[in-house]
């Protein structure tokens, strides 16, 4: 009996979160898919060793394996998902494109999160900074994203290219641009929560014993705003992947031979009617990743909310 009690007491609160998370079926499926797609793009190149940019003009316009059912299709197991009009392997392009799209998503999301949390906490906690930071947030929020991206591309592309090489340079540029244009919602949400928390008894108590500001933020405020931060993180990831796709789709962003999911879509639109698989696969990858991330966010929000967990 005592043992049981002890076990209950040492049980980590994250187990409760996980238990609650498990009850959200969409979130579990989403998490599973995200894990799958991440492993797919990370381990894919070791299993499927074709180079995504290798041209093989003799094997152009191959169809995916399942079209063999119709009997007339031109396909081979060497390229199970077919090839494009220059003979590049679709599966290899999906893997390599996914690496870029997902890493853009994760890094941009992390950047936006750090910025948003920092600004939100500062604005919420320090009354003097509040007005300044929130007006700045409004300002950034009112900037139209795409034109801003275009201008930044124009201004910084050459310098970054010279400093880091074409691909890394553009990667940094895109990630930074997406990051610094998508932190505002996080900042607003965090500020609102911090403002409310600041008046709670435990914060007043902590203040009354002279807790310094940085410890107050780290120990008392941040853990309590984790839930909205996590949720906006998942939304931010989805948003970053979509923005990168939009940029690639517009023919901006990465060089034309550098596959990303958005670019694969862009390149395939011309022949969409004849070779639907070329849009379906990257389109599916983008949609499912974004959808699964959204479900995870939904599940996390429920799981991280103590009231819903029933404690």
């Amino acid at each position, binding site marked *: 009996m005592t043992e049981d009690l002890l076990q209950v007491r040492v049980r980590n609160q994250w187990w409760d979160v996980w238990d609650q998370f498990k009850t959200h079926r969409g979130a579990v499926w989403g998490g599973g898919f995200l894990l799958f797609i991440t492993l797919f793009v990370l381990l894919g190149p070791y299993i499927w060793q074709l180079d995504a*940019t290798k*041209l093989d*003009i003799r094997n152009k316009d191959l169809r995916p394996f399942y079209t063999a059912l119709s009997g007339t299709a031109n396909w081979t197991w060497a390229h199970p998902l077919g090839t494009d*009009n*220059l003979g*590049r392997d679709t599966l290899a392009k999906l893997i390599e494109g996914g690496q870029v799209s997902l890493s853009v998503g994760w890094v941009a999301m992390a950047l936006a999160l750090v910025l948003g949390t920092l600004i939100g906490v500062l604005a919420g906690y320090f009354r003097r900074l509040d007005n300044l930071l929130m007006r700045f947030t409004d300002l950034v929020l009112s900037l139209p994203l795409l034109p801003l991206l275009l201008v930044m591309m*124009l201004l910084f592309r*050459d*310098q970054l*290219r*010279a400093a880091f090489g*074409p691909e890394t340079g553009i990667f940094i540029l895109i990630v930074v641009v997406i990051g610094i244009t998508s932190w505002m919602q996080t900042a607003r949400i965090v500020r609102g929560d911090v403002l409310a928390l600041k008046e709670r008894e435990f914060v007043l108590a902590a203040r009354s014993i002279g807790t310094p500001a940085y410890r107050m933020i780290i120990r008392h405020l941040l853990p309590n705003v984790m839930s909205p931060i996590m949720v906006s993180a998942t939304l931010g990831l989805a948003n970053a992947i979509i923005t990168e796709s939009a940029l690639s789709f*517009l*023919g*901006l962003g990465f*060089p*034309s*031979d550098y596959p990303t999911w958005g670019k694969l879509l862009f*390149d395939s*639109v*011309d*022949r969409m*009617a*004849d070779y639907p698989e070329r849009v379906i696969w990257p389109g599916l990858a983008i949609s499912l990743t974004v959808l699964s991330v959204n479900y995870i966010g939904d599940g996390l929000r429920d799981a991280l909310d103590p009231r819903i967990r029933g404690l």
Partner: protein
Amino acid sequence: MTMKTALLGAIATLAAAPMAFADGHIGERGRDGQLSIIYWQAPSILNPYLSGGTKDIEAASMIIEPLGRYDQDGNLVPYLASEIPTVENGGVAADLTSITWHLQPGLVWSDGTPVTSADVVFTANYCMAPDGGCAQLSKFDGVASVEALDDLTVKVTFDAPKPNPYGPFMGGQSPIIQAAQFAECMGAKAPECTDANFGPIGTGPFRVTEFRTNDVIQMEANPNYRDPNKPAFATVTFKGGGDATAAGRAVMETGEFDYAWNMQLAPDVIASMAAAGLGTPVSAFGTLVERIEVNLTDPSPNLPEGERSTIAHPHPALSELAVRTALSMAIDRSLLVEVGYGQAGRPTCNLVPGPAIYASDNTGCLQQDLEGAKALLEGAGWVDSNGDGVREKNGVELRLLYQTSTNAVRQDFQALIKDWWEQIGVGVELRNIDASVFFGGDPGSPDTFQKFYADVEMYANNFDGTDPQAYLAAYRCGGEPKPDSQWQGENINRFCDPAYDALIDELGQTADLNERGRIARLMNDMLTKDSMTIIPLVDRGRVSAHANSLGGVVLNTWDSELWNVADWYRIGE
């Protein structure tokens, strides 16, 4: 009534219908309502003198007109002139030093004021004004003076005998603008006259009602057009932007637009669009050559702004002939044609692929030779000493930035050519730029083809009319885009060869057609096979598409595609 008679009746109605269509295009002005044209490169200005972009020139050709145009066979047709001056009719002086144009009497601008020879003189002065950066200056090459003899007569005097005196005021690139409207816009002030540049007053079948830069132009029939029965359309929406695919779809699959320009799409894509049955692709071969332009100057971003891609700094690698030749040898042009153009293209080694008399027999580049290219680079001292797959010499890595406009076929070409160049040890970075920006000619943008902040770039260009003199004259020393000329200029490669300049001058003094052919071929060879300053890839036929209900379209490769837009009509229901 039996089924048989009913069917016969139906067939008879169908058979009679086309005749009714044919008659339908005569009538009063504006009878056919709305015409919708889509150009996937959006016009950014309606003044051809300030833009080298085909989209701008062609959009402007609906509004402002030259004295004469070229028809679909390359013949000269009078437009504002009462006839084409020739030596036989006395319009061209026997010593070939002057040409005298007579305007049609009674011409008025769309604002109702009369067109006089003063407007023609003004047009010449406008383009020839110093520091104006006129994009069509080569049309006025060798013009000593342009004077009005009376209200309707203009005499153009050349500083030397001019065997082809049809440079100024002929073709869509050299239309007449109204003196009253542009009087304050001479020289360096030209780009500042926004109202005039965006809404020129013209003599053409249409006039501008609204111009939105890089987006859409609204036009209406010019009430003062010289033929009271034309144009058949009352209003025109000229939509710009998007891409060739969307434009093709809009005409051939959904029928939203009546005419789409320059369907630069893979042949199978065009065929599948045409199968939808709402529109028809039309094609014709002209002088359009898809080529790679080699930058002979250094575009390095490490140079201060204003010195990048100027003749002050020769290119560290591409100024070497062996490198340029190797780049050309590595390319399999037949495969490019197969991938990109099908029936609408053919491999070429020439900058001037036609007319026949001007086309060089230069075919040496048609055979791909990767081994030869490697050997050539080896021999010139370019070796891969550090094992990174890219050759270097004297510390200079042979890495190229290869830019072009955003377009599916061009990106395919980029991928293929990059593959070949990497096989011979040349590092390639690709970049594609939105076509409206790339061809926009905005001196403030670093991404225009004139600024050429890249090592090589690919696009297509052609010449109006049948005479390549002006086209070849573009490569004169000093004609390059540079900061002093607001980055306007046609010598994109920054090519400079005194021997070539001498040939330009010689061509300008030769009247005999065969002799002209010989010189032009020589010049073509100097730019292509001898120096590889220009690496021609594909001689492109032009493919455009029009709705099946749009009549009167005659695709013209020798002038603006919209040259006869006044004659277009709606085929009746």
